[in-house]
């Protein structure tokens, strides 16, 4: 099972440095969450890791090999990317959209096999989007579209998953469901890297957290190591309190010091 490694990645647009020598490595069996304030470079890092952007300096290694040495289809067999949102102008059904996730393994010529349909049904079941199967994708709510998109990404059956804010539009039940799926993928030997805005979701489900601030990696470690009042208050420039979660073995992050 392959790992995904960033080696001293930098990315610049004009004079602005969006990412400054970031190194980290996501290994099989773990969920690595990337957290940080708006504009810290989280999405840029994810785009570099997925090959959408080419770094100004440094390199990305997938399974020990440079990302550039993979062909487009080869890459699609190794890693799947879940975008923040997929807009569609044409009336494909949710099922058809998830089926598109099977394209890399199907190649461009042959039609779908019975196994492709099975994988699609299973992935839609896991993401609680089974009942949306026959619905027209553009008529679904944003949250429903997000679950269908996750099903599409899972249907790709790639060992490395890159998720860009996979829970952004979801209700609390589905937020937990999606993070649970990320964890299951990791337990099955996959490598999962997710940009997560909600620190408590990251704390509850990620094995490790990478904290970005102003384009730099400022901390990387287990939730307990990283989610400290001092670090978070500093990074988010806002008073933050960290308690122990009453039911789970992880930190609980709350905004504010005393009552406002």
């Amino acid at each position, binding site marked *: 099972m392959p790992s995904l490694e960033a080696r001293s990645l930098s990315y610049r647009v004009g004079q602005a440095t969006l990412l400054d020598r970031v190194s980290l490595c996501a290994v099989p069996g773990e969920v690595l969450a990337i957290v940080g304030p708006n504009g810290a470079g989280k999405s840029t890092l994810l785009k570099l890791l997925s090959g959408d952007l080419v770094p100004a300096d440094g390199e990305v290694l997938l399974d020990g090999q440079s990302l550039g040495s993979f062909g487009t289809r080869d*890459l699609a067999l190794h890693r799947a990317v879940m*975008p923040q949102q997929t807009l569609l*102008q044409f*009336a*494909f059904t949710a099922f058809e959209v998830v089926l598109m*996730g099977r*394209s890399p393994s199907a190649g461009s*010529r042959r039609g779908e096999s019975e196994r492709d349909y099975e994988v699609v049904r299973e992935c839609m079941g896991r993401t609680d989007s089974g009942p949306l199967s026959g*619905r027209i994708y553009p*008529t679904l709510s944003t949250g429903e579209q997000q679950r269908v998109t996750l099903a599409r990404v899972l249907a790709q059956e790639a060992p490395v998953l890159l998720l860009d804010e996979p829970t952004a539009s979801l209700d609390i039940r589905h937020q937990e469901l999606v993070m649970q799926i990320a964890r299951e993928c990791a337990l099955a030997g996959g490598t999962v890297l997710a940009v997560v805005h909600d620190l408590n979701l990251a704390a509850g489900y990620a094995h490790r957290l990478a904290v970005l601030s102003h384009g730099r990696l400022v901390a990387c470690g287990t939730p307990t190591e990283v989610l400290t009042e001092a670090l978070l208050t500093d990074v988010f420039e806002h008073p933050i309190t960290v308690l122990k979660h009453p039911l789970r073995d992880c930190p609980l992050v709350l905004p504010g010091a005393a009552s406002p």
Partner: protein
Amino acid sequence: MNPARQQEQSLRVTRIAPGVLFPALAALLLVALLVSANVGAVRISPVQTLAIVARHAGVHLDVAFSRQQDAVLWAIRLPRIVMAGLVGTGLALAGAVLQGVFRNPLAEPGLIGVSSGAALGAVVAIIAGFTVLGPLSLPVAAFAGGTVATFAVYRFARYGGRTEVVTLILAGIALNAISGAATGLVISVANERQLRTVVFWTLGSLSSATWTSVLAILPFIAAGAVLLPRYGRTLNLLVLGEREARHLGVNTERSRTLLIGLAALVTGAAVAVSGIISFVGLVVPHMIRLLAGPDHRTLVPASALAGASLMMFADLFARTVALPLELPLGVVTALVGGPFFLWLLHRTRREHGGWG
């Protein structure tokens, strides 16, 4: 309609299976061909049509037909019908493919500058008296104009090895405006006779179709009809989004260049012999989506078939409805296609809340 019923309607997806759609479209094409051959100043029955075609293929059938019927069908009507089929196929194919490539249901072949470029080429040829290539002078000039315009649009949208779709569309709009202005400028120095040729050409017509012009565009349309349907799955993924398509293993830059290039060739060939025929490239793919859904593996080949039939019927209407006068074909397609498209917009708004 109450909201619950509306909801229910949008939940239900009824689609014609490809196994039914393609035989139906093939049958429609055959009907279009035989009816078109039958109707006109000289009547020719379907059986006679077959016999005349068989005779020219060297097979003698025991069916009576006059020498006049033979001449009318073989020298005038049939090349025109085949030409209508080829032009319709080309425009509908290009429309289906470009709507997919641009992820926009409002895209049509004219968007990438090919039609207005071809018009400029044709008008310049008419007014400069370019006749070196005989009857093919005008088509060749139009084709060259269309190709140059598309290439210019594409060059503009390409920067650092990447093509940006929005830039491409905007460059197309700008180039259409420039070609339009240049065409107007050239027309302003035209004489009466040239002016009539220009107007005739820009309104679209197939009345000058001959076997020579059919053979001239056949390779281009055939190449499109054979190659473009192979990109059905690629188009489905491109519609999902450029990044998404790449993440799913599509070499987006290469596919897009190839698809736009082929669409331009096919449109250029069609426009070169027929003049400007609007709405076919826009409307036909929408009709197929309505019947069979948006999957490009069905949509692209089905649009090709439906475009051929539709254009044959449109041309039949244009040449027979006001006998002995002939209506410009582009006017017929726009008169029928425009209202149909408005109805389609209305229906889509009502049932899916629009495209946005």
